[in-house]
């Protein structure tokens, strides 16, 4: 009896210490992630000071308008939805060793088709069917668009960094061409698509402006996280990323996998556009260039493809983006602080990674 009792206490104690170990690990990785953030804020503050602006009131405004104020917080959550979906796509591509740097082009191509199709379908279909169709279309268009770099890579061995970057420039111009020539709304003076009526947009949650796209984003990030770590498909992708020659040697179908990686990764970017258009924008203008894809790249990398960290970084980024707009307006500077901060963040992240490596080598 007492032996059994002892055993359970030992097991319980082990479990507690395991949880403690886990917590310290989480704490440590949070700390290593926070140091670059703090560094970026300090250098960003110095730049603001040089420009004669008060960094404290600037950052105060960022927090106030991006996080504390109810309107700003809602806007932050709305912005997070497409960012999370783009991130989900990158969480597939990067561990598989595919540098999909063309999410901006994929986003815009998916978006422009969805924007044209939405008002067309809205009168005929009910909410759920309409949204599902738009989501599938956005995903599919971007996936098809990504077949160009995918085929160039899988069959002709052409570096995807270059092809995807080039296709972003092509996609931006091509979508503008489509809007100006074919999709434009004849009743407006600026070249833009027809507007999806507010009544036909994604349902909102918690009696706020936040639409269910946010849920789609969270689900996508968590599902991708699970897929990469626990399924055979995820392991195949990671093997391709870690050692493509070993993947070939093990008999994996590299062409099929490469196509899958590109289309999935791009598809999420297209889905992001569909969610954003069906949720808030409702329209695409000819010179539309959200240019968020390249900004998500470093965030996903910094989060090391881990769902919880990805969500945390995207949230912080969205706060800064939303709050930064108000803060920049108040400080009378153009709204490019967030670009600079992400660049800084990456620099500090690289430094942090090196420090960590050095300390782990010492021990």
């Amino acid at each position, binding site marked *: 009896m007492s032996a059994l009792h002892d055993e359970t206490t030992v097991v319980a104690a082990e479990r507690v210490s395991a949880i403690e170990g886990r917590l310290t690990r989480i704490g440590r990785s949070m700390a290593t992630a926070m140091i670059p953030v703090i560094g970026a804020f300090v250098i960003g503050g110095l730049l603001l000071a040089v420009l004669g602006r008060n960094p404290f009131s600037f950052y105060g405004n960022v927090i106030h308008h991006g996080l504390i104020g109810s309107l700003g917080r809602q806007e932050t959550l709305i912005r997070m939805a497409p960012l999370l979906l783009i991130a989900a796509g990158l969480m597939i591509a990067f561990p598989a060793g595919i*540098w999909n740097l063309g999410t901006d082009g994929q986003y815009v191509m998916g978006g422009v088709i969805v924007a044209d199709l939405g008002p067309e379908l809205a009168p005929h279909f009910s909410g759920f069917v309409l949204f599902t169709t738009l989501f599938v279309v956005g995903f599919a268009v971007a996936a098809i668009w990504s077949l160009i770099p995918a085929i160039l890579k899988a069959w002709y061995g052409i570096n995807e960094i270059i092809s995807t970057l080039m296709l972003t*420039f092509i996609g931006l111009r091509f979508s503008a*061409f489509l809007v100006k020539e074919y999709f434009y709304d004849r009743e407006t003076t600026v070249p833009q698509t027809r507007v999806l009526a507010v009544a036909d947009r994604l349902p909102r949650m918690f009696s706020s402006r936040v639409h269910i796209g946010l849920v789609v984003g969270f689900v996508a990030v968590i599902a991708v996280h699970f897929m990469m770590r626990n399924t055979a498909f995820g392991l195949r992708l990671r093997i391709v990323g870690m050692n493509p020659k070993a993947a070939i040697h093990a008999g994996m179908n590299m062409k099929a996998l490469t196509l899958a990686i590109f289309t999935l990764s791009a598809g999420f970017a297209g889905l992001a556009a569909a969610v954003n258009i069906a949720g808030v924008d409702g329209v695409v203008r000819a010179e539309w260039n959200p240019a968020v894809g390249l900004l998500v790249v*470093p965030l996903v990398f910094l989060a090391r493809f881990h769902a919880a960290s990805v969500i945390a970084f995207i949230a912080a980024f969205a706060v800064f983006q939303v709050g930064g707009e108000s803060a920049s307006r108040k400080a009378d500077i*153009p709204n490019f602080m967030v670009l600079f901060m992400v660049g800084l963040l*990456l620099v500090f992240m*690289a430094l942090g990674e090196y420090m960590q490596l050095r300390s782990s080598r010492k021990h």
Partner: protein
Amino acid sequence: MNGLFSEVFISSLVSGGVIAGIPLIYAGLGEAISERAGVLNVGLEGMMLGGAYGGFVGALHFHSTWFGLLSGGLTGMIISLFMVVLCVRLNSNQIVVGIAITLGAEGVTALLHGAIYADTYPRVPVVHPYAIPFLSNIPIIGPGFFNHHISAYLAVVVVFFVSWVLKSTGIGLSIKAAGDQPHALEAAGGGVHRIRTISVLSTGLLAGLGGSFIVLVGAGLFVPFITNGKGFLAIVLAMLVRGRVRWLIVAGVLFGMSLSLTTALQLAGIDVPIDLVLMLPFVLIIVVLFAFGRRSYLPAALALPYDREQR
């Protein structure tokens, strides 16, 4: 006479092609050097943009195009220091740091320009072209090719100089070894980090020169994001010429022409959707990659960090 074979079309295409192509040649040459040494510099766009802003400020401050170019080159070099410290010395991921440099440079130049010059939009000193005797008198294409600011001709000189360095000097030999077999260079007593540092700094200098050329000779003023993807185009050109850097002159001018096609078409009164024309250079890149990319030569150790104690 209007149309594709009119004089106004051809001469504006050639002249615009050279003006748009020279930055590609400068930056592409820089990229070619660092790629040869094994560093894939995705931050080229950011270095060009930084150079553009630095050149702009320098030219305004000193009222001199040459000082502008100098300060542009130095700015590019300073930005490339990030790449040196993070990628060459600390072995960070070259692609992520490259993106960081581009994003950071976009942000900081737009911010500074907006905060300092947004109300005045000043213009830099006007440049004076130098017409090369005889050559510039060739009908139709003569003025387009041979009547430019001296810094345009300088690009050609620099290309030949770098070509000579790579082929016939010890530094050139070490650069090639650093990209192809860095351990061999180290075993032979050369410093891989030293060579890669020199290479990346030259890349920054040349990208900065290219960027400031856009502002000082091409546009005459700075606007945010003025490089508009030229840095990425230059990366591809560097890959395509496969270490035979003299081909950059031809490739640069050809792609420059495709960039200046819209203006030339408008001048010639030809009506084509502007977006499709602006798309052209990038489509061209994909086509060229498809046609020649398969055989494009890249150094074996490209984008791989070098660690002496690891193999």
